């Protein structure tokens, strides 16, 4: 079977990371921004796994499990805050969260 070089995985990860970072900066819907952050984290995960396979070491793979756990916790907290905020603002558009200015 044809062997896919590690560089391809790294390139894909870099593209995913850039799309995610661009999305965070451009999109205004908080939920979509959450998803973009997840995409950035998963791009990092893909990089870890690609390198771990290249080196034949497990460190990178173990790291990915840690990241997945942390990402799940982060989203849980983020959504909880967003739900509470929605009760006040009735919107998930980040431009409507503007009571703090100065």
């Amino acid at each position: 079977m044809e062997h896919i070089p590690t560089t391809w995985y790294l390139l894909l990860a870099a593209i995913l990371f850039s799309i995610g970072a661009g999305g965070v900066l451009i999109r205004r819907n908080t939920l979509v921004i959450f998803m973009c952050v997840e995409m950035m984290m998963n791009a990092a995960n893909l990089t870890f796994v690609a390198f771990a396979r290249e080196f034949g070491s497990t460190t990178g793979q173990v790291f990915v499990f840690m990241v997945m756990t942390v990402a799940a916790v982060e989203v849980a907290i983020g959504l909880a805050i967003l739900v509470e905020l929605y009760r006040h603002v009735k919107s998930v558009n980040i431009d409507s969260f503007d009571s703090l200015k100065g």
Partner: protein
Amino acid sequence: MGIELPSLNFGALLPVIIVILTSVMVLIFDLALSDKRPLGWISFVGLMFAGGAGWIQQSMEGFDPAFQNMAITDGYTHFFNLIFVVGAGLSVLVALGYLGKKGLQGGEYYAMLLLATSGMMIMAAGTDLMIIFLGLELMSISLYVLAAINRYSRASLEAGIKYFLLGAFASAFFLYGIALIYGASGSTNLNGIGEGLKAVPKGYEALPLFGLGLLIIGFSFKIAAVPFHWWTPDVYHGAPTSVTAFMSVGAKAAGFAALIRVLTVSFGFDGSMFADNWHVAVATLAVLTMTLGNLTALAQNDVKRMLAYSSIAHAGYVLVGVVTGTEQGISAALFYLMAYAFMNIGAFAVISVLEQQDAIGTNLEEYAGLAGHHRVLAMLMAIFMLSLMGFPMLGGFWGKVYVFLAAIEAGWIVLAIIAVLNSGIAAYYYLRVIVHMYMSPVSDQSHAINLNSAMQVALGLAAFGTILLGVMPARIMDLAASSGLFG
């Protein structure tokens, strides 16, 4: 055939373990108690025990690395543990005095505060990027909750969501940086990275350099360095004041703890292009952070927001110490963070006393004539403002002196001059508060000020620490210098 269990060396991480157990205890007692104030005192006692454990560790011989080279307990860890215990202890006292007024007294507040503290301690002790990442997340996630803990206040929730979004964004950068460094060096252990990078052939340095850049961006968010600071004023302004006090001191110190260890251990070896590059990058950050923080603070009329910008500027001063990369500069940065813990929490404690409802009562006008109707509070605020400004014989002064001297000695003369000019600019907005308190007529809407015992202890300890560091800085400086990061 037996399985040989790895030695974990729990003793080396005793302070962290004590803090985590205390937070679990707080959650359990939360179920049984209807009056939540004892929970604050339990947290305070737990933090004192953690500090005591750190004290005992310090008097003992060096510790072996714990958890398979994942964490280490050296002089550097001890010093930062001391900063975190001081910061968290004072914040608990401020919270005890402040939360009741807001109707926020609850077990989860103290539990989250303790978990954030344990995350900070893990960041300072971590010698593997995996552990530093986990510590960072433990701290950050607890702080997101704390910032948004007043769920009846739109400002607090907005502060929480902003902190969360930018924090998660920064974590992703941090993580991708770790992934690239792992790819370049084949390790996530700080020493292993240093070894691995020495073997990187000439012309292939782009990958680890890019990784290092992303790592520095991730840390810059946490320490609120310009241009990664936009979240700071909004979050510090919107979060409950007792949380802001803790966040501005603890999260910043923890970010610096991990940043300094990573830069010096993994990327500090002589003659490498990495060292040259991060010195320049951090120097640029330091100049931008100091200058922009101070200039924006000049325009603020809200004291809480002004202190948010001032905390950005202070991160710039500490970065000046980091830039040098010398033992003297790092010790100066450590001393600065200790002094900053006392004076900044003190200043926020005064704000929390005067604050009434949501972000009302933090305007500079409210401080007019404060000396007339509450002399002690005005005097304490004056001490904290003067110390933040760098007035001689107070803690903040020696922090600045040590940092600037270290920069000059390491040959960063221009940087030191910019830093001195900046502390001159800063004098204006700190003195403005004092002038308002002492020289303006009493404002009509002045209201009764009630200082409960916890708040009195917090203010007293913060002022005592600020003055003590100013009168006898040498002892703490020796402690910082013996941090042993340079073997």
